[in-house]
């Protein structure tokens, strides 16, 4: 483990050195940073290429793997990035710290065109991903679980079930299963009684839980028949049903958890005006739906399901009638409490 720390130090040093070299060599065309992989490929096709074609502006792409530390470094040194796609925790932290420019919503077309909770003063949500409940239709048929209470009901649905290891999501789902309304979940978790209540509920299925670690595991656990149902990222079920012709159903229980990925503009960007016109250009219902049809991540703009392919719609957290009963993951709560609650989780697991 001492080597792990050494390796981390080395990796941090190398990547910092690398980005300095890369940064110095870059001319300052508008630089847009996504998460690479299939997601950025889809964005490139549906959003970035049309922007370059229609406006004639140059655009440089980069990709990253998240981490607020990276953005802190970027905000201090010479400016190399303009528009960055961030996850919810980076949005909250960076906005608090003043790393991002405050968006001029009059230039971006107003916040009211978005679904509630998809925007704030620093970021404009670009897609929604979620943790929902999946089961094998081939085994449970049409009478599968529909709520977190069903998930915790081992009499009605025997067999193992799988949750992500750790307190995040597990505690929320436990409270929901115990009858706490979605709007009350984080208020309860902020109190000792609420946390006790969540662990007490988890106790009822403790021996029936297989804990997953990586996002690919719940799908594998369903495929091998290890578990009857699992919490899972919605995109994974879409992908596996397409690739392996499995018949996994994605249920959207009240209080499925969703998170928004957002675009932000770095505060030290010299291209703020261009960045805003870029965001206005790419954030349209049509372009978001083009991305959604590839990734099954939900668009953030209102009325963005008209052009969604019928085979994608069931996997979309922002489909009509679905997003309304989701629970927005409270990033600020978890940044503050993860260490303390992780200790409680480990102590609970060892009992």
């Amino acid at each position, binding site marked *: *483990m*001492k*080597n*792990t*720390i*050494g390796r*981390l*130090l*080395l990796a941090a040093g190398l990547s910092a050195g690398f980005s300095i070299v890369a940064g110095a060599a870059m001319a300052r065309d508008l630089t847009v940073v996504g998460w690479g992989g299939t997601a950025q490929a889809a964005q490139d096709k549906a959003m970035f290429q049309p922007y370059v074609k229609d406006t004639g502006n140059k655009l440089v792409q980069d990709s990253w793997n998240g981490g*607020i*530390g990276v953005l*802190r470094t970027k*905000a*201090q040194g010479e400016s190399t990035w303009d528009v960055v796609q961030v996850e919810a925790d980076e949005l909250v*932290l960076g906005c*608090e*710290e*003043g790393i991002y420019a405050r968006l001029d919503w009059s230039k971006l077309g107003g916040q009211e065109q978005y679904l509630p909770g998809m925007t704030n003063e620093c970021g404009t949500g670009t897609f929604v991903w979620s943790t929902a409940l999946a089961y094998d239709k081939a085994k449970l048929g049409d009478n599968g679980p529909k709520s977190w209470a069903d998930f915790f009901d081992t009499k009605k649905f025997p067999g*193992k079930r799988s949750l992500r*290891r750790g307190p995040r999501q597990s505690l929320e789902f436990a409270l929901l299963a115990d009858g706490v309304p979605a709007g009350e979940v984080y208020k309860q978790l902020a109190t000792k009684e609420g946390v006790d209540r969540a662990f007490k509920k988890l106790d009822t299925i403790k021996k029936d*839980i*297989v*804990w997953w*670690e990586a996002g690919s595991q719940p799908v594998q656990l369903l495929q*091998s*028949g*290890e578990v009857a149902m699992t919490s899972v990222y919605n995109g994974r079920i879409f992908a596996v049903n397409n690739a392996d012709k499995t018949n996994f159903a994605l249920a959207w229980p009240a209080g499925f958890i969703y998170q928004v990925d957002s675009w932000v503009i770095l505060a030290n960007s010299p291209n703020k005006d261009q960045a805003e016109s870029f965001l206005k250009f790419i954030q349209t219902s049509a372009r978001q739906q083009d991305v959604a049809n590839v990734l099954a991540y939900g668009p953030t703009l209102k009325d963005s399901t008209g052009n969604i392919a019928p085979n994608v719609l069931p996997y979309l957290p922002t489909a009509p009638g679905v997003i309304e009963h989701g629970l927005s993951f409270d990033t*600020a709560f978890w*940044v*503050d*409490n*993860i*260490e*303390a*609650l*992780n*200790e*409680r*989780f*480990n*102590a*609970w*697991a*060892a009992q």
Partner: protein
Amino acid sequence: MAAGKTGDLRASLRRAERARALRGLGLALPLILFTLVFFVLPIAGMLVKSVQNGPMPDIMPETSALLQAWRAGEPRRLPDEAVFAAFAGELRAASQNRTLPELATRLNFENAGYRSLLMATARRLPDTPAGNWRDTLVGLNPQWGEVAIWAAMGRASPRLTEGYLLAVLDHRRDDNDQIQATDASSAVYVASLLRTLEISATVTLLCLVLAYPLAYRLATLPESKANLLMILVLLPFWTSLLVRTASWLVILQREGPLNQALQWLGLIDQPLELAFNRPGVIIAMTHVLLPFMVLPIYSVMKGIPSNYMRAATSLGAPFFTAFRRVYFPLSLPGVTAGCLLVFILAIGYYITPLLIGGANDQMVSALIAFLTLQTLNWGLAAALGAVLLVITIALYFIYTRVVGTDGVKLG
């Protein structure tokens, strides 16, 4: 003339000696540098980090100094206006020069929720106090009127701290700086260290039981057959750890081939629970680490002349006595080396328990990874590493005392 010649000879001999020594050093230099940079320095850095308190005295020097004086007072009351004023000034400065997030992260290790409190206060902090700073801050958030919040900041104020090491031993300083045992509902670190040692010891023992007869067979077989068997030992050794771990998961799961075979044979009715629990972790780790036990024992056994056993038998010792009195003591250095190697490797295991274990089978490395990558609490992670290092070194000394170090080879 003759004397000059001898002097020359001596000088050139010295030169040659020196050149040889330099060449020797030159050859070893890359390794020495490598060890220094990638092994000695990180470990030293880790040990230092485990007692370094963090950025509070750098970011808020005046508040830190005042709070340390305040800590000396008994009983604890709310700090006076001077502390509040110094804090307000340094909070604004930290917010402006962007050092506040670092401090907020640090203070959140003391009290969950401190990060939000600090960031929100900084955002709403007025330029001048309404009346005095104490009332102003308490007006912004009543938590500033609680002794606990200031006691937490006080604990973060000195340059050095024993707090991380205390935390690893499931103790903490309370608001009056008295050392208290951590509440049982969140005491995890001692249990995790013990679990790590228990799993490692079990795996070492299993490896020894499996490896010793195998190594004996390998050492006594004719060369050609031994080589073939050796390939079977080495083949998994050459396969990626991740692949082997994933394969075990496939084999051990409820509807995996092992359970299917056992059910088909009629040995069991219900599938055995072998994955996502302790037995799964131990099976997989034993398999992965087995070659590290076989190879040292084999290499020592290979050097034991076979006529020793024959001599003992010809002198009338039954096989078992001859083995116990002659062969086994000679093979002990290999056993010692193998056990040390496997135990030390097992202590640092991460990915196998992560993938095959349940929630209660995680070893210390999982906690260290969590603290380093997710909460950035490197102090606590380093303290865990330091305690583990001390335990390992202590066990090493006890072990070599008991077993003896003759011919212990780790390479």
